[in-house]
């Protein structure tokens, strides 16, 4: 599936084209480590620059038939999108507050249904954030773009969500298929329209036994990463294979063993970090206790914990822990997963995308801003 040379001429017999990922792992590791420190120094504001750098790395190192994609978004767009989203969200939050107040007067906790609105808004933000990222994705000098109403997507997502909840998760494949159909129908590459042809029943047939297994497995916790890896592998493969851009098709031979490694490595790192953090906390607390004489038992524990030096030490440890988590998650579950999915995917009938006329505009980053301020941002 690996094609050594990008040939400009169209082969007469359509052979599947490969997707390759050429990014150097150490380069990405340096990028996210440096980014984590800068996020710390800037108290989080660097996230717009880091997100852009990570996307540029992932996009530009992904090549379809030898031609590398390009991410044209800028951090400034994200920052402005975030600020505008805040300006819009403040009146919404205030309205939400007063509506909740009125509802509570009529009946205690009557404001809870307002959470439904927040869920709806989150789905809207996710759709619009996808639209932004797609509009910044360029391949062979032509951008992807998206239309369709974010609210109309949000309604679907919410109603399907209720149905999935009511069916204890069994309706998940149908939700995924319906939402993916909606998203892909509104996805375009130049003048080519996308579509999604994955069948919910296929997904269901491959994954239903996992649903049965996960209930007893939840009791032991230990098998859950295995089940999750198998489920994600089935889901990704089904998703990639269902994608269409015009007549272009995709096919994935992702295997669950590919994903299993990532999840266990992440778990391993997290266990390591938590162990180190506990040791650090023990040392800091021990030193604190050595300097504090007098009271004993819980009283002494409390007095050690409120010592400003101990507090600062614990805080420092916690911040380091959080930074390390972020770096590990970004390396394994973002970069490695991306690289794996890209390299296990082949493209059929790519020549159908040979004479594509550019269309669509570079929409603003407001959707990303909403997603960021609701804390649901993706890549």
């Amino acid at each position: 599936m690996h094609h050594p040379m990008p040939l400009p001429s169209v082969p007469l017999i359509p052979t599947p084209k490969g997707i390759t990922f050429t990014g150097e792992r150490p380069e990405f590791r340096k990028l996210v480590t440096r980014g984590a420190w800068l996020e710390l120094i800037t108290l989080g504001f660097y996230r717009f620059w880091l997100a852009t750098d990570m996307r540029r790395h992932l996009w530009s190192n992904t090549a379809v038939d030898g031609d590398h994609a390009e991410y044209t978004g800028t951090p400034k767009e994200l920052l402005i999108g975030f600020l505008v989203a805040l300006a819009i969200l403040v009146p919404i939050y205030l309205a939400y507050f007063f509506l909740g107040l009125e509802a509570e007067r009529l009946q205690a906790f009557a404001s809870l249904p307002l959470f439904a609105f927040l869920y709806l808004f989150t789905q809207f933000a996710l759709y619009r954030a996808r639209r932004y990222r797609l509009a910044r994705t360029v391949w062979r000098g032509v951008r992807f773009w998206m239309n369709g109403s974010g609210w109309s997507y949000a309604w679907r997502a919410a109603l399907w969500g209720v149905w999935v909840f009511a069916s204890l998760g069994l309706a998940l494949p149908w939700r995924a298929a319906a939402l993916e159909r909606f998203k892909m129908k509104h996805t375009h590459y130049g003048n080519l329209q996308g579509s999604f042809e994955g069948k919910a029943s296929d997904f269901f047939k491959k994954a239903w036994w996992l649903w049965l297994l996960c209930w007893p497995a939840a009791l032991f916790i230990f098998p859950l990463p295995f089940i999750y890896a198998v489920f994600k592998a089935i889901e990704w493969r089904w998703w990639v294979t269902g994608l269409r851009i015009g007549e272009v098709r995709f096919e994935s031979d992702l295997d669950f063993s590919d994903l299993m490694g990532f999840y266990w490595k992440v778990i391993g790192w997290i266990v390591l970090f938590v162990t180190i953090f506990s040791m650090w906390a023990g040392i800091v607390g021990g030193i604190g206790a050595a300097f504090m004489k007098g009271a004993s038992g819980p009283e002494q524990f409390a007095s050690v914990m409120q010592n400003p030096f101990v507090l600062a030490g614990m805080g420092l440890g916690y911040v380091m822990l959080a930074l390390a988590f972020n770096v590990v998650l970004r390396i394994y579950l973002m970069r490695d997963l991306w690289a794996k999915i890209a390299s296990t995917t082949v493209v059929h009938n790519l020549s159908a995308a040979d004479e594509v006329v550019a269309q669509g505009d570079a929409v603003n980053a407001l959707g990303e801003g909403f997603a960021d301020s609701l804390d649901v941002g993706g890549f």
Partner: protein
Amino acid sequence: MSADSDLTSVASPAPAQEPAVISAIYYDGTSNRKRQVTLSPGAALDIVEDGATVATWPYADIRRADGGRNVRLSCLSALPLARIEIADKAAAERVLSFCHALDADHHSKQTGKVVAWSLAAACSIVVVTLFGIPLAADRLAPMVPYTVEKRIGEAVDRQARTLLGGHVCERKEGQAALDKMVDKIRVAGGMTSPLEAHVLSTSIPNAFALPGGKVYLLDGLIQKANNVDEVAGVLAHELGHAHNRDGLRKIIQTGGSSFLIGLLFGDIMGGGAVLFAARSVIDASYSREAETQADGFAITSMNALGRSPRPLGEFLVRITGKSRISTVIDSHPLSADRLDRMAKEDHGSLGEPILSAAEWRALKEICVDPKKSDGGV
């Protein structure tokens, strides 16, 4: 992308080399057709296809674009997605040597600026959170109409009562005693806004004031009290909250501080934890200040009634224990410190008792007869 270039004034370093052929792929920005072109570097970069120049890019406008291993270029004065890709390294180097503004818009050069601006923004947010918000709450709270505050109080009221699970005790004699106590303290403290006080049949020893002038004493508190002055002191403290409109100020402060801190941290550190910790510390510091002020009100009004505020302090210590340890997340000042303050302001109990012995008994028995209460209105 900022287009700060000037197309005309740039003096190109007129190349004197022999016109070697540099082959490249050109995307014109209107379609994804790969056009095989040659580049000829002259006064500007000419893009030549089949002997005809199809586009000319001024060197000052040429920018580097992400293109994996190949060199990929864009041009500010061409269509936004028009691209040139040069696979041959040496040829690419030759073209790049003419372009002097390749990375002008690249943001990695701005990291220092980003850090500086972020720190400035963070400082201003911290200053606003610590000083601006309490000030805003102090100024805004008196401007909120009383009816609005009452509405907020009613909303919180239902929640609070549902969570505590008790019902309102309505035994007439007890309520009359409570009302008498409230009136005496209001007059003594110079309080003008309307106020309602009720007892809830819950065994937790506590009391709270809601926005809109509603105060609840929990029955557990009354049962734990040894004398009238202890209950009166607690009631005076809660009336102090109502007098200072602390409920309303707290809503403004919490709303403002959580918004600003959310702005600051965004999604760093997996969101929640840092945000929550920072908010608890800030809210608690606002709250300790309000508690100290409410204590002040209680001390003044008790002394005005000729009753010592000391029993209130002793009662607090009895309920919370006499720990001398305070932490930054405590919402109240230390009970022991509060007792010290009240002992210092103890001018003796020379005035007449706030309630008669019979009234005190009635207050203690306000929740006794369940038939008379109608289950939480």
